[in-house]
């Protein structure tokens, strides 16, 4: 683990732009290279907003009202804002693999569009790159699946396509917003294992938003527990799950059992 964090969030504040109501009240955390950090909390705790504001993709009417998201993609110490690094070091995997895939595009085109636009690959190069990526994320029969439409795939395959799209730009940091919530339990396990494997092979750092503590214990090195837009507790996964200090964490763990 290098000393410098690859992602550093400082005093992050997120607000409704019109009502001037603050939803995330100034939170700080760091993510180091090769590390997986879980952001947990119940609905409305601000964990998803935190993740989305890292890459500057907040919903309409919600803005980052303060704080710094400093990303140091290549470890050079040169820091840039996460919002400028989408597709250039940052990538995101979403919760709903169905609605996150454009229904009017074939799988091959969906995976290819990233490398084609950002790297200026030719059609042929992009195609072979897509095939590579699809094989890397374990899509069987990738050649044929290139021509499929999103609705023709199962949920698990769709999520693999999402992950392939995210990897297409060779990110250093992968932001995952409830990547397994919409999937069957058995598929969940496969996807998590895939994510862990990719993390190992590519040396990714991951931030994973979830409300599922089983997922956290399986993949996260560290956990950050959020409640009402504040961090209430953070630390190594084992410590937090085995001996939670905060009441809220305790109730989360009890609710999961």
């Amino acid at each position, binding site marked *: 683990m290098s000393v410098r964090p690859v992602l550093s969030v400082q005093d992050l504040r997120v607000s409704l732009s019109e009502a001037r109501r603050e939803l995330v009240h100034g939170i700080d955390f760091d993510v180091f290279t090769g590390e997986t950090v879980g952001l947990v909390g119940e609905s409305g705790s601000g964990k998803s907003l935190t993740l989305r504001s890292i890459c500057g993709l907040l919903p309409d009417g919600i803005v980052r009202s303060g704080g710094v998201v400093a990303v140091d993609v290549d470890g050079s110490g040169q820091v840039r804002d996460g919002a400028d690094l989408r*597709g250039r070091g940052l*990538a995101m995997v979403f919760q709903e693999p169905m*609605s996150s895939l*454009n229904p009017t595009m074939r799988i091959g085109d969906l995976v290819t569009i*990233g490398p084609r636009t950002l790297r200026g690959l030719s059609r042929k190069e992009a195609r072979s790159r897509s095939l590579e990526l699809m094989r890397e994320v374990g899509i069987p029969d990738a050649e044929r699946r290139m021509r499929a*439409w999103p*609705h023709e795939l199962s949920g698990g395959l769709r999520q693999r396509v999402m992950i392939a799209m995210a990897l*297409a730009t060779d990110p250093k940091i992968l932001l995952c917003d409830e990547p397994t919530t919409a999937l069957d339990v058995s598929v969940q396990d496969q996807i998590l294992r895939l994510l862990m494997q990719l993390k190992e092979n590519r040396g990714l750092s991951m931030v994973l938003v979830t409300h599922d503590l089983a997922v956290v214990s399986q993949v996260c090195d560290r956990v950050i527990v959020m409640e009402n837009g504040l961090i209430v507790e953070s630390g190594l996964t084992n410590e937090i799950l085995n001996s939670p200090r905060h009441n809220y964490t305790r109730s989360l763990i009890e609710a999961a059992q």
Partner: protein
Amino acid sequence: MKSRSRWRVDPLLAIGLGIVAFVLLLGIIAPLITSHDPLVQNVRARLASPSGEHWLGTDLLGRDVFSRILHGARVDIPLVLVATLVPAVIGTLLGTVSGYYSRRVDAVIMRFADVVQAFPVYIFLVALVFLLGPGGRSFVVASACISWVGYARLVRAEVARLKNRDFIVAARAAGIGDRRVLGRHLLPNVMPQVYAYMASDAVLALVALASLSFLSLGVQPPEPEWGRMIADGVDRIRSEWWLSAVPGLAIVIVGIGFSLIAFGLERQASRR
């Protein structure tokens, strides 16, 4: 199974396309079907009744009506298509900008749309064509000035609805630029509705063109234009009724064709 319905053509759409294409084709091959020049006058043979020589008789100037009806398809249908396409392109672009970008741009475009919409369509159209000088080109320009509003509103609403959808956010998260997101991800999901709207707009454009020409503001004589032909026959409606009835029927047939296309496209768009 859903993938097949994507490509299955709605039967009404097929019939509508068939009708319009057939009439247009008749117009294109008109010189092969009829030996009469639609513009040649023959005063001695004026107002002839339908016969083997003149299938639909002749008009006040002795021109062959059947030939003029067929050649009218060459005048009316292309003008209607252009007068539909131009505002569709303008409106779609403005609507996209309006729906996707900042509120200030949106406000400017939409207030402009309000102003255009405040006028009754036909009065505005007649006034504009009058200003620009009668003729087919003025009709297209005037249509472009007026009809873009419908497309802009439609596209704006659709874009605004879609832009927060997961797959758009996901595309942006992958680092894809705004223009590419719009072109590859957003608009393909909006265009089916635009096409359906275009087809129903074409019906209005057809009637508007015929009306303007009827009022001597559209296509100018001696060009064979259906609306103008109706006007020419009005004085003889009691004796040579077909002079007005047949061009009227031509407009109705093409209008039904476009309506069926619109209906079919709408059904296809909503099925997905």
